[in-house]
């Protein structure tokens, strides 16, 4: 039932087919790659079904109908974590998905950005601490967010203040990939115009999205990455319903005027996005997070000097070790 790889370019897929022994992907193939994704967007844009469709099973079940009394009390933003193990073209991925229900749903949403930033920084801080331990934990699980998928409302106009603020604030801490949720509410022309308007806003406000073309060393890949960037923001339509037709199981949304097949690349960018997230660019996203975003954070943190005391539940021996390390760092 896995959607076939979209036809970006055959060289792209072959590039991933034989992993180089020193590559991150090869080493972690045995263990299963650690991959952490965060989903952010207002309610009603399809985060839950996106995850279910991405993993091809029901990871997040539909929420039970809340009581009318509690339904409209603005819940503060939550961080719900889901662990999913998937296998993509031979690679095992140990994926953690963090959903953030409540983002942007209240009357005053200005606190949301800080909460998200704090969460992401906390994961960086954990790694910072762990790295500096004398005795490191070999089983340490990296919780740094490698990708943040941001759901934009399909208004047909341009970005809204919430969208601009979010990308502006978080772009330096995490790779942000913008998607248009519920993209089936836009016609083909409207979608094209909307994508254009959004990208113009991105340029105008200099919003830091994930730059697919960050690695300029490989010119072949660069060309493909430029083509991929033309698709941003990715239009996404997702659903829970699976239909059996003559070709097998198909995921569709059925309307009185027709049905949209989620996996059909001509109708939405979901298949392409899935391939990017779980196949072609998973290594890039992880590498950029570790080599650039985290390193920048680390440098800033150490320069400011806000680091030195290692957090430890350990015994006194460890404390002494950390003190020594702190002294070395000065």
């Amino acid at each position: 039932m896995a959607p076939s790889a979209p036809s970006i370019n055959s060289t792209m897929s072959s590039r991933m087919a034989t992993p180089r022994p020193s590559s991150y992907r090869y080493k972690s193939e045995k263990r299963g790659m650690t991959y952490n994704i965060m989903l952010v967007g207002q309610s009603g844009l399809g985060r839950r079904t996106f995850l279910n469709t991405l993993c091809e099973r029901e990871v997040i079940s539909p929420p039970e109908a809340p009581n009318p009394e509690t339904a409209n009390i603005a819940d503060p933003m939550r961080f719900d974590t889901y662990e999913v193990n998937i296998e993509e073209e031979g690679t095992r991925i140990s994926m953690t998905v963090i959903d953030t229900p409540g983002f942007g749903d209240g009357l005053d949403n200005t606190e949301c950005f800080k909460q998200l930033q704090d969460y992401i920084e906390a994961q960086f801080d954990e790694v910072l601490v762990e790295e500096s331990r004398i005795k490191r934990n070999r089983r340490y699980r990296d919780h740094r967010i490698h990708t943040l998928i941001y759901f934009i409302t399909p208004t047909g106009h341009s970005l809204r203040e919430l969208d601009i603020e979010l990308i502006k604030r978080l772009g330096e801490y995490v790779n942000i990939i913008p998607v248009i949720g519920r993209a089936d509410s836009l016609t083909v022309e409207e979608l094209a115009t909307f994508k254009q308007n959004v990208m113009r806003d991105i340029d105008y406000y200099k919003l830091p999205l994930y730059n697919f073309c960050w690695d300029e060393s490989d010119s072949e890949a660069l060309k493909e990455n430029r083509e991929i960037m033309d698709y941003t923001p990715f239009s996404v339509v997702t659903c829970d319903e699976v239909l059996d037709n003559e070709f097998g199981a198909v995921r569709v949304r059925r309307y009185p005027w027709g049905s949209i097949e989620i996996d059909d690349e001509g109708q939405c960018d979901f298949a392409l996005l899935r391939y990017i997230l779980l196949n072609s660019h998973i290594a890039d996203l992880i590498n950029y997070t570790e080599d650039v975003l985290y390193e920048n954070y680390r440098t800033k943190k150490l320069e400011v000097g806000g680091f030195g005391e290692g957090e430890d539940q350990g015994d006194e021996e460890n404390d002494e070790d950390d003190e020594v390390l702190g002294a070395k760092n000065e």
Partner: protein
Amino acid sequence: MSASPNDTQDYVGFDTITQQMERKFLKRGFNFNVILVGESGMGKSTLINSIFASHLIDTQGRRAAQEVIRKTTEISPVTQTLEENGVRVKLTIVDTPGYSDQCNNEGCWIPVIKYIKDQHAAYLERELKPLRDRVIVDTRIHACLYFLNPGSRGLRPLDVEVLKRLTEVTNVIPIIAKSDSMTIEERTAFKRRIKEELAFHRIVVFPYPSDEDTEEDRVLNASIRELIPFAVVGSEEVIEVNGKLVRGRRHGWGVINIFDESHSDFVHLRNFMLRTHLSDLVEVTAQRHYEQFRTSQLRQIKELRAQQAAAAATGGAPPMPSQAPPQAPMASGVMHQPMTQA
């Protein structure tokens, strides 16, 4: 006064009043004022242009990157006169760009409520003038189309806050405008939830039950209430479907005809607003919302006068010296404290 076929000696002829009224109506025309409340991108301008089959307003959404993001809700009324079969309507559409568009939407409804109350106040002022116009210009809002967000499971916190306040001052009609991204099952579930939540919060939307209702009226109103919120699709574009030209939207997977009842409630909404309940909307505004406003305003004046009289009697300084004397009560500036309480 042409001879009627009923002209027997017992036929009095007062039933011709309907024709006399019609003639007056044709001469005078009438005002119809609608306010659109909903965040940008919900399809407000497209829908109102579709309902009246003319390009009445432009969308106020941000299109170019250089356009500034609005920091507050603006009130943007546009007036046009439409004519159909000799009947003229002076139609005012009030758009509310900026509503619910910021990160912090606390109080974004205040300009909207203030505008609606200001129109009641302006009418009251004209009514109270010693020398008043024969026909008072009516800028009162007769209908408020409230646009819900498709995809939310029910009312959002902002919706509850605003609907409570809106339903106290005007006739509210809840709408899902871009309903073409919802399947029929999703729509049904959404409508059911909205009705439950409206009932729970005691938010009463138009049409209201009335003692004057006939059996026919009750049946019609019940069927309208079933449909609420109206799941509509608007379009100003004419496309070709099976050789016919229809107003619709063309998706990659099918074509929506906005007049097709299996596709959307557009026809029902239009008939409801314009063909069956148009005069109700105008009348109920005058009889219910305006009367409530008028009563509370006049009571306040009475209390104010009583307080001033009491203060004068005790020889103290008149209370609230900053307020102008009660003879010119209804200018929006004076009683602004009570009116803008949103």
